[in-house]
């Protein structure tokens, strides 16, 4: 384990530097008047920056794993994975934003802010220091508030932003209090040193436990863990749909990344692939309870939703519950499982949102009833319906889709950890989710549309994105070896 100084660390920071540069360049390019008239310039710059970021991530991925910037940031396979993940999510979101009518009139700042959040995701996933964790979390949060309230001439968007800010401010206030308690007890901000302190000081400290709970509030807020999920439905509904898609995947994954890294690094001890919780903090049971509560609530409330965005919000809460099982299982399989699950979630959730954007573009309505009879509305309608069916099947977790493989990995990790009750209840939850995912499929094929005009899904690129995501859902559901290999090398935490 090597702790690098600032100069040596700069090479590791190359991809993120590119994102910062992209951010500045987008804003600068918006200054000349005749340049700012060109609506495509900023998204193109953002795309180039993100692609460059991805390329450089592949380059830095070859470097030996190291702890950089005097222990602030950890550059390991896990970090590399989240760079990849953030870049891909950002690219898809940029594409969706270009296609969505809701954000057709955006200015250059929108793209700059998207790039900003993309910067925050790998920063948060790589943080090894409580201070860094807080800053990266705030970077993501504040940018999310702004993007959610971007359409500030619409009432729902403003309302969502205000709710988000209020919840977020409270959560980060509670979290920073918790962090300060942890710092007070352990005397260090470094997660690795916190573990070393816990190992060498076995005495029980109530303050540490309370500090930990308060910190979990901050993380839990980011990943919409019950009971910190209240903001999610309103915010998802009010935000512009591409932003909702991004929020439900990118920042959420970052929240999971830091939750897992913090728990695995600071609170457990690695004993050959099994991470044993330290001393008196039974983090495993705690997280199992949270996971169960989250997935159950998400699934049961999703049953009665009529708005597509609220529907997907509760569905994403339920999926957060599944992913939280990795924090309960505490072994390498769980890490692999959650990484696989994140990739599958990226594909299927982005796909579902892409179809949703197409439907909203077509009907101007966000109600679930807009999906009625989609399968019978011309060739484009049939295509969208088939794709949506695949995404729904995948979100339920049925073979032969990628969602099934992800769930399989996660549940086997839970069984490996011998938390059988959680596994059983998790599977039961999936059965519940089948009901409401199937409802959409029923709407698309067995109900009459209000007006039988052909589905408007013009152009070549947007349908091909949907088709591509649907194909990926099936392809990786059958041939998951490539992804499995990726998760195998990524599931490594440097600690």
């Amino acid at each position: 384990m090597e702790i690098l100084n600032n100069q040596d660390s700069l090479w590791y920071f190359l991809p993120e530097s590119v994102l910062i540069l992209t951010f500045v360049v987008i804003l600068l390019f918006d200054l000349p008047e005749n340049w700012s008239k060109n609506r495509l310039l900023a998204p193109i710059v953002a795309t180039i920056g993100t692609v460059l970021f991805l390329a450089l991530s592949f380059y830095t991925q070859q470097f030996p794993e190291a702890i950089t910037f005097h222990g602030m940031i950890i550059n390991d396979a896990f970090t590399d994975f989240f760079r990849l993940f953030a870049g891909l999510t950002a690219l898809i979101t940029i594409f969706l934003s270009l296609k969505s009518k809701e954000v057709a009139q955006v200015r250059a700042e929108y793209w700059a802010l998207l790039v900003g959040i993309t910067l925050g995701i790998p920063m948060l996933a790589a943080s090894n220091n409580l201070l860094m964790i807080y800053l990266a979390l705030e970077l993501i949060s504040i940018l999310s508030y702004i993007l959610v309230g971007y359409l500030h001439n619409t009432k729902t968007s403003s309302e969502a932003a205000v709710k988000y800010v209020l919840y977020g401010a409270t959560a980060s206030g509670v979290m920073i209090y918790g962090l300060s308690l942890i710092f007070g007890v352990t005397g260090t901000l470094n997660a690795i040193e916190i573990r070393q302190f816990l190992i060498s000081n076995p005495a029980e400290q109530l303050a540490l436990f309370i500090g930990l709970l308060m910190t979990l509030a901050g993380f839990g807020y980011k990943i919409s863990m019950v009971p910190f999920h209240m903001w999610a439905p309103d915010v998802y509904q009010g935000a512009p749909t591409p932003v909702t898609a991004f929020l439900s995947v990118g920042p959420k994954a970052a929240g999971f990344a830091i939750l897992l890294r913090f728990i695995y690094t600071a609170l457990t001890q690695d004993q050959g692939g099994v991470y044993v919780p330290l001393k008196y903090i039974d983090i495993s049971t705690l997280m199992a309870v949270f996971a169960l509560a989250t997935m159950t609530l998400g699934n049961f409330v999703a049953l009665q939703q009529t708005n597509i965005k609220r529907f997907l919000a509760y569905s994403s809460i339920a999926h957060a519950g599944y992913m939280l099982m990795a924090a309960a299982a505490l072994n390498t399989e769980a890490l692999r499982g959650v990484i696989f699950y994140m990739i599958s979630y990226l594909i299927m959730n982005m796909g579902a949102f892409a179809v949703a954007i197409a439907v909203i573009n077509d009907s101007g309505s966000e109600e679930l009833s807009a999906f009625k009879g989609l399968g019978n509305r011309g060739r484009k309608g049939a295509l969208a319906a088939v794709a949506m069916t695949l995404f729904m099947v995948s979100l339920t977790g049925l073979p032969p889709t990628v969602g099934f493989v992800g769930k399989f990995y996660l549940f086997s990790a839970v069984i490996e950890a011998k938390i059988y009750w959680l596994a059983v209840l998790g599977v039961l939850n999936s059965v519940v989710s089948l009901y409401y995912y199937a409802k959409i499929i029923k709407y698309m094929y067995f109900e009459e549309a209000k007006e039988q005009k052909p589905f408007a899904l013009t152009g070549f690129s947007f349908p091909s994105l949907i088709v591509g995501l649907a194909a990926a859902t099936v392809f990786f559901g059958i041939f998951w070896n490539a992804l499995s290999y990726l998760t195998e090398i990524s599931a490594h935490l440097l600690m």
Partner: protein
Amino acid sequence: MSGFDILFFVFAGFALVSAMGVVVSPNPVYSALSLVLTLFSVAGLFLLLQAEFLAVVQVLTYAGAILVLFVFIIMLLNLSDFELMEVRMGNLGKALLTLAAVVAFITLAFVVHLTRITGDPAVEGFGDISTLGREIFTHYVIPFEIAGVLLTVSLIGAVMLAKKNLTKE
């Protein structure tokens, strides 16, 4: 009891009372001003711990921040409609919430009291601006820079949200 103790209790008392004022005051202007007092009392506590730089920066930043808050309160709230801002809640609800807050406060105070604070005593020259600067630009350079990015980004976002007619050419 030394002078240090007396000053500590004065500052701490002011901080607590005025923090209470922030919450219970029905008038948002008074809340903002109580917040000034709270933060300045905390600056006094910093001063007692010989963190002069922190104390002064606390006053400097928060005086400006509170001014902005003040201006926002005046501009955004219809000052004649204070009663509208009161939370519509029965006495029982208020009592329960107050009780919960008191319990939480006592628990936290109890917990902090029980805690054995570990960690090293402050380094020589703590609170000195050159030590601080050196520390920021070596060990804490990346949080420092990210904080810079965060502030820039928030600034742009704030301007964007405040700007009218965003969609108009």
